[in-house]
């Protein structure tokens, strides 16, 4: 299997990372060599193997589903690149 430029463009859309032609070609080369290495897994027959979902063989602890008002609006927006004191500001999405 090989990853072509069309696939790179598709993944870049899904990842929300813009790539130009030059970067796409470099990525195609890198990803092909990485996937060649990954395809070693096809040597193994795993038809009857259950996938691992957690390394810890314990059940997760439950906690009560409580609403906590911590009054941290200011802290939450403190690091935003653009805000108007109450909300995050983004480029216009509706006309």
């Amino acid at each position, binding site marked *: 299997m090989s990853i072509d430029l069309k696939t790179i463009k598709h993944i870049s859309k899904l990842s929300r990372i*813009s790539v130009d032609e030059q970067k796409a070609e470099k990525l195609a080369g890198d990803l092909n060599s990485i996937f060649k290495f990954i395809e070693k*897994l096809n040597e*193994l027959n795993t038809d009857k193997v259950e996938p691992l979902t957690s390394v810890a063989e314990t059940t*997760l602890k439950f906690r009560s589903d409580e609403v906590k008002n911590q009054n941290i609006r200011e802290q939450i927006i403190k690091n935003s690149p653009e805000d108007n004191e109450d909300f995050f500001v983004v480029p*216009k999405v509706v006309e």
Partner: protein
Amino acid sequence: MSDITSQSLTSLVKNIKEKKLSSEEITKAFVDRSEKSKELNSYITEDFSNAIDKSKKFDEKPNLDLKLPGIPMAVKDLFCTKDIRTTAGSKILENFVPTYESTVTQNIWNEGAILLGKLNCDEFAMGSSNETSFYGNVQNPIDRGLVPGGSSGGSAAAVSGQLTPITIGTDTGGSIRQPASFTGTVGLKPTYGSCSRYGIVAFASSLDQAGPMSQNVEDCALLQEVISTYDNKDSTSIDFNRGQYSKDLTKDIKGKKIGIPKEYRVEGMPKEIEELWKKGIEYAKDCGAEIIDISLPNTSYALPTYYIVAPAEASSNLARYDGVKYGFRAKGENLIDMYEKTRSEGFGAEVQRRIMIGTYVLSSGYYDAYYLKAQKVRKLIKNDFDEAYKKVDAILTPSTPSSAFKIGEKKNDPVSMYLNDIFTVPVNLAGLPAISIPAGLDAAGYPLGLQIIGKAFQEQEILNLAYAMEDKINFKNKITDWWIK
């Protein structure tokens, strides 16, 4: 070399408790040496003047019952520290100042330690050489032009170069143990669920663990005792009986069964590594341990599995960097364009590569072939360890397939860079604890490490084995202070 900065953590704690040294004297000594060590590029953010102020405050009213009384400490820049910039080695978090503290660092400050600054690392902990950091590569104190390993490269260099008495790193596929091995220091990756992940910048959540990096095993045990706590803020934190690791540390390992997995004899492994491993086996025997040959048949599938699972989790975790809530934002013509440019300009090449791999293996049509397949193989790898631990108490292997390499040597070949983690990655996939201890030098005088892998939650067992072997090995690091003018 200052007689303060060359002391172990244990000895500094003792000196403070016996009032032979003050926190201020110790803090100033490490600040002074850190100031002279800019060429190592260990720090991303320094907090030296605050550290000295805090040390003075500590001395005014010293609480000597604490485990780390007035001890200065720099930490990896992947731990969120309240009001102190936390970058994860990335441009995208260049101006990020957390409004909260990670549980692991909070545990450290609660025991009296003082923050010196934030240490360099590979961007989002993705790398094995510290060359993917937006803040530049780190020099290994062992020799000029040598990588310190990664991703906790700044941490390893800071301990080895004596810029901090001890530190913490994080380990997703070897990021504590490989740099420890490259710099002649000790590094412990605890059992998954031992140390809280709350407030650690996430890379691959089912693999990430924080752990101590130190000059010796005794220091390592003490810090592990401090950082390992059950935490309800991390849903995968496990409530188990944590030991008094430093108090219960013993060199008596008579009769312990140590497994030697034949699959770790990989093709093309340098003779020096093979020799080191043989020597390690002899040391273990000298300590009274019993050596047993074992098999971990799926070892060679661990790295390909890791390079599906880790990028898949990373692509999901890093979706949060969208230029809206925090971090860097690029200008865009519309919302989508802003997202795409922000992530393209804000993330470095290796991080973008891994996000793309992860997105691909999770995408429609490929999920079963890659991600599900990898989760099945991960189960087989864990089963291998479960089977081996019916016969042995711990497993001894080399930490890395080579000593530290030159800066730039592997930068353009991702697969050869990934091969660095061949001995460390299986441990993360199975969620086990493992420690790397320095065990010898190669022909060039560069350190080589041995790894002891334990059963889940048996940190005490591997610390004891490491403590006993450390005594026999009697390793001496060759640090010449070449970077200090």
